[in-house]
């Protein structure tokens, strides 16, 4: 590693760290983004509902609420610069009793106080007009047209690509295990013995922010993992709504939602259950049934038969439920960005601004970079292109003519782009391209993708993994194992 000395080290390559890195990349400073996994977005950010919230769940008394409202407004420009899938499809909250309508009215007042534009209280006819697939028992609800959906991992990949393009150093497989302060900087050591130096440190370590804080001897707090299980229906579901559908929220969470994902599938979830473990992402049949019965209360035609996959994510929750963003009172040059759970994804562009201001306040001199380029190239994708566009794409690069993932129409050129952008695991390629995300879930294309990764990187196929460490696919070749003698006679 040549560049070992940095002004700012950001710990955590999730959406929070990525957004901060990108923000800082517009200034003349040396910044490094440290990620413990083999790719960015492989923690909290990969299993996220992908909702750009509408700014009505909490009033302006919360930091998270203020940042949510501010962040929401920043997405149009971000999309223009970074080309991640994003759509302001709007959010509908459906109420099924007069009691629930009272809560909806409170949500409306929250939104008003947050100065949300376009918020609308709806009677039964209006809500059914907006969303005809809703349960006919609906009595009314709330409509937030500024709400939307994005693909969270694509957002993170784009942010990081932009940050790296503008000079931020990305170090993956860098798990911070110790840190020492000497003079005006920290010496930060990874689990594999690599060392970097940095004057400022930003703790954006998600689920592990408490551990990182303690490694640096800063504030003690505890991140409580709160699991959310999600279930995904195929592209062609006839139950797919037009808007994100929320129930009236309960005390702990926003409830089970029905989400028309930006890429055409339908997602149902998430559950909300606190647990001790930070690496238990298991799903249960019990929760599948619970999620479906809750979701069917919103849209009765939803069918378990259409499920193509399920997964779970962990929210990095803090006691009290608000974000914890601030300059450490215990360690110099240490900034906490912890407890970023919902609506963290929405708030993240504003969080990055906020953190930049904190750094400034703490004495970091920020001069705008003259050659800062906020845009990254918009990679053509077969599924977004019409037949004539595809024809000219192939003339430029024939690899657009070879479909690798038939379910999601992903071409070899897109897979190669993912690999060349550093996504060299099956999950990395999946999140970047959508290959393996369709109906067959990789049944037809896994072997093809593995071969392309191997060809592009020179890695042996046996060493290619699903998502790094230990998640190998097929390590052995025929002939490696001894075969019982009697079998050869069968």
């Amino acid at each position: 590693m040549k560049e070992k000395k940095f002004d700012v080290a950001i710990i955590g390559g999730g959406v929070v760290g990525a957004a901060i890195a990108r923000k800082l990349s517009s200034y003349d400073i040396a910044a490094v983004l440290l990620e413990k996994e083999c790719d960015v977005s492989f923690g909290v950010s990969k299993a996220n509902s992908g909702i750009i919230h509408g700014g009505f769940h909490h009033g302006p008394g919360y930091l998270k609420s203020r940042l949510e409202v501010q962040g929401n407004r920043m997405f149009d420009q971000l999309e223009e610069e970074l080309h991640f899938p994003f759509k302001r499809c709007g959010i509908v909250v459906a109420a099924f009793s007069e009691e629930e309508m009272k809560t909806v009215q409170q949500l409306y007042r929250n939104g008003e106080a947050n100065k949300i534009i376009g918020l609308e209280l709806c009677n039964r006819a209006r809500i059914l007009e907006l969303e005809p697939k809703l349960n006919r028992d609906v009595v009314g609800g709330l409509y937030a047209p500024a709400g939307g959906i994005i693909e969270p991992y694509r957002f993170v990949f784009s942010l990081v690509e932009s940050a790296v393009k503008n000079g931020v150093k990305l170090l993956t497989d860098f798990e911070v295990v110790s840190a020492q302060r000497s003079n005006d900087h920290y010496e930060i050591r990874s689990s594999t013995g690599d060392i970097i130096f940095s004057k400022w440190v930003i703790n954006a370590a998600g689920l592990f922010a408490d551990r990182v804080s303690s490694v640096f001897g800063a504030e003690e707090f505890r991140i409580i993992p709160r699991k959310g299980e999600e279930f995904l229906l195929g592209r062609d579901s006839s139950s797919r709504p037009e808007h994100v559908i929320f129930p009236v929220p309960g005390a702990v969470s926003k409830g089970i939602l029905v989400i028309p994902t930006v890429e055409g599938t339908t997602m149902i979830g998430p559950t909300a259950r606190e647990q001790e473990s930070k690496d238990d992402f298991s799903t249960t049949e019990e929760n599948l049934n619970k999620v479906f019965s809750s979701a069917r209360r919103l849209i009765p035609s939803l069918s378990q038969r259409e499920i193509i996959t399920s997964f779970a994510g962990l929210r990095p929750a803090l006691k009290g439920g608000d974000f914890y963003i601030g300059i450490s009172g215990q360690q110099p040059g240490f900034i906490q960005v912890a407890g970023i759970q919902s609506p963290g994804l929405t708030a993240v562009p504003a969080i990055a601004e906020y953190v930049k201001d904190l750094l400034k306040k703490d004495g970091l001199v920020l001069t705008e970079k003259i050659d800062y380029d906020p845009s990254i190239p918009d990679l053509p994708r077969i599924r977004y292109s019409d037949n004539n566009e595809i024809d000219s794409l192939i003339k430029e690069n024939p690899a657009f003519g070879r479909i690798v993932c038939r379910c999601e129409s992903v071409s070899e050129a897109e897979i190669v782009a993912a690999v060349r952008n550093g996504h060299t695991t099956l999950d990395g390629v999946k999140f970047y391209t959508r290959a393996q995300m369709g109906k067959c879930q990789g049944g037809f294309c896994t072997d093809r993708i593995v071969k392309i990764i191997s060809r592009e990187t020179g890695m042996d196929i046996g060493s290619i993994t699903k998502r790094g460490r230990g998640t190998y696919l097929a390590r052995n070749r025929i002939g490696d194992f001894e075969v019982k003698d009697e079998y050869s006679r069968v």
Partner: protein
Amino acid sequence: MNTAEFDTLVIGGGASGMAAALSAAEEGWKVVIVEREEFLGGILHQCIHNGFGLHYFKEELTGPEYAERFSDMVESSKITVYLNMTIMDIMKEGDGLTVYGLSMDPGMVRFKVRAVVFANGCRERNRGNIGIPGTRPSGVFTAGLAQRLVNLEGFVPGKECVIVGSGDIGLIMARRMSWIGANVKAVVEIQPNPAGLTRNIVQCLNDFDIPLYLSHVVGKIKGKERVEGVEVIPLENGIQQPEKMFSLECDTLLLAVGLVPDNELARKIGVELNQETGGPVVDSRLMTAIEGVFACGNLLHVHDLVDFVTEESSRCGKFVSEFLIGKRPEKQYRTNPGKNVKYIVPNYYEGARENVFYMRTLIVKNNAILSVKVKGTEIYRKKLRHIQPSEMIQFSLKEEDFKLIKDKGVMEVSIE
């Protein structure tokens, strides 16, 4: 953009597509096969075991041998073949059809054709479809993907293996994994009866001392990075008995949990789908409700033997030929699955010719009776020695069978 004109375009160059194309080309039509892989033969290439061709060729072949017999015939015919080409779009235009195919060379091709045959087969059901709870480690493969990794790429997916599903694919993979030195710990089957052929139970499990757990399910997958094991739960009278759960350690889980027609493209052009088969609804001549669009093979309904795929698809090619010369059936009537019948294909019959039917039953029974009634009058009856859901039933009705009825109408097929 390149354009090309043909009388008929066949989507898929596997067993089904080749048979349909050959039979239409025999009648002198200009036929093109579009295949997305780099060779003809489809899934047969990875099925290196034998047992293919007993009905059609009256001899026992391996999958690649069966494929080669047909690809040789295609090569010596006048059929045009595009390999490495994926169909992106299909639409009705004027009185014909326009189909867009995508490949590296010659790029995008617009085909103008009068008829299209969907013969693009089926895909495997996966973990998400059957909703196995637990963690999401690597090492969970559909059986077909594992078969491809082993037979075409030379990889061993893992050392300690559990297989879900006792259909023929699951059984054949149990044997294949044993032959490459893996330890197959169990085959877990949700039904009380094995889903595969008896000869495969004997040759693929018994000969290798692999335990078959009938009436059991995998209730959970364990392992954070790679699969570490599964929890197996017995069923009693169809109900899970969690207190009798036991664990099996393994690093690999193969899923052989059924096949479904790969109907995305058919859906795109607006073909109505049969909820029971997952394939298109077709008339007595295997044509969908969209004129000139035909379907056959595993895309129409999942067959158990490739020989039947060939038979049905060859017939489809002849129907395409009749369509191209302008022959249309006079009047057609619905075929309905009755008592104990899961489905019957095709979904219509006509009275003035021989009709061939494929169907599946819902029950397991010895000495069953197949009965065909039109408006309450039985026109056909057949004794079946043994029936089970995994074994397709075939029968045909001749022109004279319909002469028994004066008043034609909906046909109901039942089994007792």
